[in-house]
């Protein structure tokens, strides 16, 4: 932790970045996003198993505010979001000062200690304990056992359902939705200045939290994540109604990978799936 | 029926004021309702286009002329654009009247200056006609109105009527660059023309409505001319939804524009958080 604080202090003292988006601990020991603007602020920066938030979501909010680089503390999974934003031309690599942290997992239940059982689903199959690129790196690497990914079991169960059963399953889940848009606001890839849900001429998606409005919103958002979602699982964490959103986004990611060999957020120079055309693209789904 | 259910009105006449402003003349489908609908100048209503939504406009006609309820609107968003597709004979909804009204009793026996810009003339028009219909209860009347260009002036016929009235000083202006070769009125922004006309401030009430920037620059002119803050009255156009003080959308500080307003004095406005 001292290493991270020192790195950040130096970055701010030497003005390598105008601010650093990082984590701090409040007086209830809850770890939350925090903006460090001065070397004194940098003293408050922390990183531990409770640093769950994907801070890349703040890049779109701060990028136009001033001259100079945005510093950001990223875990391996968060860095994929940064990479995806660069791939989609939302920010330039040279406008960021990336402070990577080696991570050995983050909690699921924030009120409990971190453990194998109290870790995010994404940690169970994580391949990026060390961020693949960065301007500075902090934290020693710790061992973390990859364990059974119980979400795969549920996904397999849903795949075996008939179309009707699947529709019933999802309708039951979406009925809970209250249209708070926490899923959208917390997602780094949802950076549209005017979301499709906010367009009123015409109103593509009902704003009401009804069966129709909820189904439209959640499925359209999932589709907008196809080939773009980097699997940080923030949407599901943010959802106050416990809707298993990552089942959808993960499924979309699996299809992008199996059908097109593409995974977002892997390399800043890679053209995006939806944003590029290749003559070798499959067309067998066009009937 | 509940408090959010509108009453049905029919479009009786449509007048194109400018390329992007239209006036509807409406009557309640129920003739009894048309007779007993009472409102005061300055109040507004929520007008429905069923299937699109509701929109807030002031009632632009005067209570002294109850044959039609009139509203004037600019084509700006979902509901107003849908209104452009409506024809004479079509049905709309109306909920109202809501809000407070211009302090006409406070104005009696005094001079009145009306200052408006662009579509801001619509909420002022109701009180202009209300005052003109009770002419002998007021002293000098001055109307200063401006728009960006000649084509953007609303109620063009009525401007001519007011110009011809004895005892009413009507000054119409367009922004510099907005005049046509045969334009005989003033050229200049409304605040500048107000300064030029320099209406007397003693025993005078000023009613002003227009785009925020026009109001922002006119207030200091009125202050300089000696107008008291209590005697400068404006009407706010905030985003409203329910119109009756519940949905929270139009709040400025502890004030609900739809219920405590939309008519406010300059003194009251200054006391509000500057967030409108």
């Amino acid at each position, binding site marked *: 932790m001292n290493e991270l604080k020192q790195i950040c202090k130096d970055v701010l003292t030497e003005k390598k970045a105008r601010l650093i988006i990082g984590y701090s601990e409040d007086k209830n020991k809850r770890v939350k996003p925090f*903006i460090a603007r001065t070397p004194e602020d940098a003293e408050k920066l922390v990183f531990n198993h409770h640093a769950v938030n994907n801070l890349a979501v703040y890049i779109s909010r701060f990028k136009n505010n001033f001259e100079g680089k945005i510093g950001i503390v990223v875990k391996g999974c968060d860095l994929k979001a940064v990479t995806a934003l660069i791939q989609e031309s939302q920010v330039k690599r040279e406008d960021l000062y990336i402070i990577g942290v080696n991570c050995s997992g983050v909690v699921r239940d924030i009120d409990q200690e971190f453990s194998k059982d109290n870790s995010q689903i994404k940690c169970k199959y994580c391949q990026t304990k060390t961020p693949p690129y960065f301007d500075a790196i902090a934290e020693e690497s710790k061992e973390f056992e990859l364990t059974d990914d119980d979400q795969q079991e549920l996904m397999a169960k849903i795949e075996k359902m008939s179309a009707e059963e699947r529709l019933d399953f999802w309708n039951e889940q979406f009925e809970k939705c209250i*249209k*708070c848009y926490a899923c959208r*606001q917390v997602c780094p890839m949802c950076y549209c200045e005017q979301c499709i849900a906010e367009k009123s001429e015409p109103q593509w998606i009902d704003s009401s939290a009804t069966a129709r409005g909820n189904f439209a919103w959640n499925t359209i958002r999932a589709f907008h994540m196809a080939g773009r979602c980097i699997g940080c699982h923030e949407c599901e964490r943010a959802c*106050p109604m416990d809707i298993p959103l990552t089942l959808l986004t993960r499924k979309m990611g699996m299809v992008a990978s199996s059908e097109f060999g593409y995974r977002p957020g892997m390399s800043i120079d890679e053209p995006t799936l939806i944003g590029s055309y290749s003559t070798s693209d499959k067309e067998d789904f066009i009937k | 029926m509940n408090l959010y259910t509108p009453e049905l009105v029919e479009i009786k006449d449509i007048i194109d004021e400018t390329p992007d402003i239209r006036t509807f003349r409406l009557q309640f489908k129920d003739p009894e309702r048309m007779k007993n609908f009472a409102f005061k100048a300055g109040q507004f209503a929520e007008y429905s286009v069923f299937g699109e939504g509701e929109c807030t406009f002031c009632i632009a006609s005067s209570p002294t002329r109850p044959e039609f309820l009139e509203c004037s609107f600019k084509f700006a968003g979902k509901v107003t654009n849908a209104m452009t597709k409506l024809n004479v004979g079509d049905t709309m909804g109306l909920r109202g009247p809501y809000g407070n009204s211009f302090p006409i009793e406070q104005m009696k026996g005094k001079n009145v200056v009306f200052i408006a810009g662009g579509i801001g003339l619509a909420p002022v028009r109701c009180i202009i006609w209300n005052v003109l219909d009770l002419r002998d209860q007021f002293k000098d009347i001055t109307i200063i109105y401006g728009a960006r260009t000649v084509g953007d002036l609303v109620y063009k016929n009525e401007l001519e009527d007011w110009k011809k009235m004895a005892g009413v000083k009507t000054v119409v202006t367009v922004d510099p660059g907005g005049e046509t070769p045969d334009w005989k009125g003033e050229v200049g922004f409304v605040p500048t023309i107000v300064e030029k006309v320099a209406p007397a401030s003693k025993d005078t009430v000023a009613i002003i409505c227009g785009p925020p920037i026009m109001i922002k620059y006119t207030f200091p002119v009125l202050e300089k001319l000696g107008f008291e803050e209590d005697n400068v009255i404006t009407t706010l156009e905030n985003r409203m939804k329910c119109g009756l003080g519940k949905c929270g959308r139009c709040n400025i*500080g502890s004030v609900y524009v739809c219920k405590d307003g939309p008519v406010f004095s300059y003194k009251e406005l200054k006391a509000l958080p500057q967030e409108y």
Partner: protein
Amino acid sequence: MEELIISTENFKKIVQELLDKEFKVIGIPEGENKYQEITDGNKLSLHPEAAPTNSSFKGYFFPKSEPIFFYKQNHSSVDLFDPIEDKKGIVVIGAKPCDASALPIISKVFNWDYKDDLFNKRYDSSLIIGMSCHYKDDYCFCVSTKGSPENTKGSDVFLTSLENNYFKVAAITPKGNSFIKEYAKYFEKDGKKYKPVERKEAIPEHFNYEKVKTWLDNNFENEFWDTAGEMCLGCAQCAFVCPTCHCFDIVDEQCSSCEGRRAKNWDACQFSLFTKHASGHNPRDNQEKRYRQRISHKFKYYKDKFDEILCTGCGRCARGCPVSLDILQVVEDINALAEKS
């Protein structure tokens, strides 16, 4: 007035009778921590030591989306139809004081001159059975908002935890009195039979409301607001789980080419479009201003207008916020600023 007590077992029998009489019973089922419609009296839980639920029960009185009317267009005319009323009376069982006290607070705005009958029809025919609370965590601050874990405001009947899974029962309102009379056979008159369960820890006063209010009265432009809400992402989770947030939107939705409904939906001042005019002008055009509105509305504006604090200190917003923005810490910071000046 004699002191009445009831066993949990007998209380569940009352619930079963309510269900048989076709009341809509809302409570927390055993094994879960959310308010739901109870269909089996035995499944109801009464746990004063449980944490507040994720969301309040306001949705039963002020639904997340409800029809105002239905319309059918024919040629150039329109017919309007009222929505079908749910005639079942609502009984909420085991409401924590921070939830029960919210209803009379929001009832004030819903009855300010114009009466919101959509809300009133549900509220006026409801019965709220409150229950003293034995929970405490770092997010609870009911005491600072003039409430308390034993606050009976908003409850018609109030249950206080006794040993042996018994509850002391008190009628708070005439409605509550009628309820107790109707189910008299389930209550025991032996008020001293069991001792009350002591609360493990008291909820402290975290801030002085009067000082906070005075600071808010005078610091609209303070630089505190530049960073107080800067981490807020602008979702509406806080507003929607909150028992006192009540802002709403009105929208029209087509069901077919000529039919549709007008609906009243939950809305939130934290959304970027909340105050945006059709002209494009937005009085609250950044998240910092919107966050200032949230805190000011809850702790100042509603008090100025309706003489109520628009917050009961339940802490749900802070527990659930995706970026852990803690309303209590913000108000404590304001308190500290108020004390300095």
